[in-house]
């Protein structure tokens, strides 16, 4: 199965594809501890890149730095060649970069449907003036969002839960909702922080299919942090390995699983053959 999936994934041959996201020299310490230390990487258009490494290697911090949730102490982030290091988080999102969180962060007080309808960016009805001056157009835009939300619910199998408060969903359903939310958004780069954590194997298949579909059919680029090596093996090429806040190596999964340093620090015995 893992073999089969990897054939479907965009292969490492597309090395010359456009660079979508590029980070250089990212640095960030917390209370004297270097969480991220001159970390850099590039994402190529249409790739699904894995980011793995031991707990505490700084993977989530990299996400936070790239999306602007935390400000880096040094380093630059470029999205489609544009330096976005100084932009606020929402501006980065509007330029097409969306992320999920390791522990699901749904809007608990909103229903599933609302969580989805909320997601499209720059909705006309979110602006104060059109709300009172162009109500008709706001209404039409809202209709379109509604229709799209229904589609997405269909795809993500959340239809039965449409009017349920998101806080009442189970852990796996929340993960699904987070991913479904990104489907609502017209974005080009999706950063997933442990999409598989807490998701049972069956649901994992759905998740994997959704990611592949988004990647192949919609051309979205992914960066995925994950501990589930099956998921990484099935989806990701290349894979970046981080330890102690640094970029250790980047290669295809096959190469990585044979790398001594990686086995020692991260993979352990289960995957060495």
């Amino acid at each position, binding site marked *: 199965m893992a073999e089969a999936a990897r054939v479907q994934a965009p292969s490492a041959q597309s090395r010359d594809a456009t660079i979508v996201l590029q980070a250089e020299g990212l640095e960030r310490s917390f209370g004297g501890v270097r969480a991220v230390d001159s970390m850099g990487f590039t994402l190529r258009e249409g790739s699904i890149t894995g980011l793995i490494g031991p707990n505490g290697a700084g993977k989530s911090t990299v996400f936070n730095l790239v*999306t602007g*949730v935390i400000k880096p102490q040094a380093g630059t982030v470029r999205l489609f060649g544009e330096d976005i290091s100084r932009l*606020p*988080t*929402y501006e980065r*999102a*509007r330029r097409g970069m*969306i*992320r999920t*969180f390791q522990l699901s*962060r749904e*809007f*608990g*007080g*909103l*229903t599933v*449907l*609302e969580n989805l*309808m*909320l*997601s499209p*960016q*720059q*909705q*006309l*009805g*979110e*602006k*104060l003036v059109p*709300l*009172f001056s162009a109500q008709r157009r*706001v*209404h039409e*835009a*809202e*209709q379109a*969002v*509604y229709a799209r939300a229904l589609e997405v619910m269909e795809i993500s199998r959340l239809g039965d839960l449409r*009017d349920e*408060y998101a806080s009442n969903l189970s852990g796996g359903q929340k993960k699904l909702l987070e991913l479904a*939310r990104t489907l609502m*958004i017209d974005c080009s780069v999706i950063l997933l922080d442990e999409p598989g954590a807490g998701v049972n194997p069956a649901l994992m298949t759905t998740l994997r299919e959704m990611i592949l579909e988004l990647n192949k059919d919609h051309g979205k680029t992914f960066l995925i942090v994950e501990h589930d090596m099956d998921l990484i093996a099935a989806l990701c090429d290349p894979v970046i390995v981080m330890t102690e806040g640094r970029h250790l190596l980047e290669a295809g999964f096959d190469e990585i699983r044979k790398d001594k340093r990686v086995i020692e620090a991260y993979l352990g015995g289960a995957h060495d053959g």
Partner: protein
Amino acid sequence: MSAYLISMATYVGFFMILAIALNLQWGMTGMVNFGIAGFYALGAYSSGLLTVKAGWPVGFAMPAAAVVGIAAGALVALLSIRLREDFLAIVTLGFGELIRLIALNEDEITEGPRGLKIDARPFADMFDRTTYPIVYLAMVLAVVALAFFIAERIRRSPMGRSLRAIREDDVVAEVLGKNVLRHRVQVFAIGAGFMGAAGALYAHYVQNISPEVFMPMVAIFIWMSVIVGGAGNNWGLLLGAGIVMAILEGSRFMGDFIDFLDAEKLSAIRVILIGVLLIIILRVRPRGLMPEPRFRYGRSPGGGSSTADAQS
């Protein structure tokens, strides 16, 4: 008697405007504002001073008070937007106290503790003494309706949805591309504008304002209104404002029945009663008498309406 009911209804109107504003800021967006009295005072003094000292016609001064409120609200929001809710509580409380201190100490402008006497009243010369209170009430209710309309339109719109998302988790909202800062500043400013307008209406109604009017206690009453009515529900807080005022004023009449209490004990008992009732209501109906409704979209078959239908 009816004159009293009319004037109480007018006071309830002031409370309602303030409560709608607080609901917008806190109930819908999650921004704690304990400085209500400050924005209220700012509106009252702006309109009062513009008519008394600058000679503006009241028809210009009152809208100007709303504008001053909006500006101050935007400023406070911009400065303190990253604060946690309990910290925002103390910063806004401090803002309210600062406004009161300025009104108290800059007596060259504000007349300080002796209070500002305001003669100007809108449309006063068009009506006689007995009908004018009704006219004023109508004016206040018109502003309540306007505030309600604006707040309700926002609440049911995609903007309202974003605001509630920000209330739930501002970081995720931002990651999803919502301009959290803009939303918050806008909403806080609109709310503060309502508060300013309420202040102006109050000032020209009582015609005498002094810093002591704008003690933090005002904020507490409005908080009670919103919490008792149901945070996030604009209908609920209208009810809440009515109830709080009814308790405040209704308890005055206890003295007419209970003879053996002296005035001091009676007023203490009134306050105790208000406190106990508040605690009981919150115990029995923790989300208020009318909780925020669940939003359901376009359920009616064929109706195709995608506007939120906020019925529960």
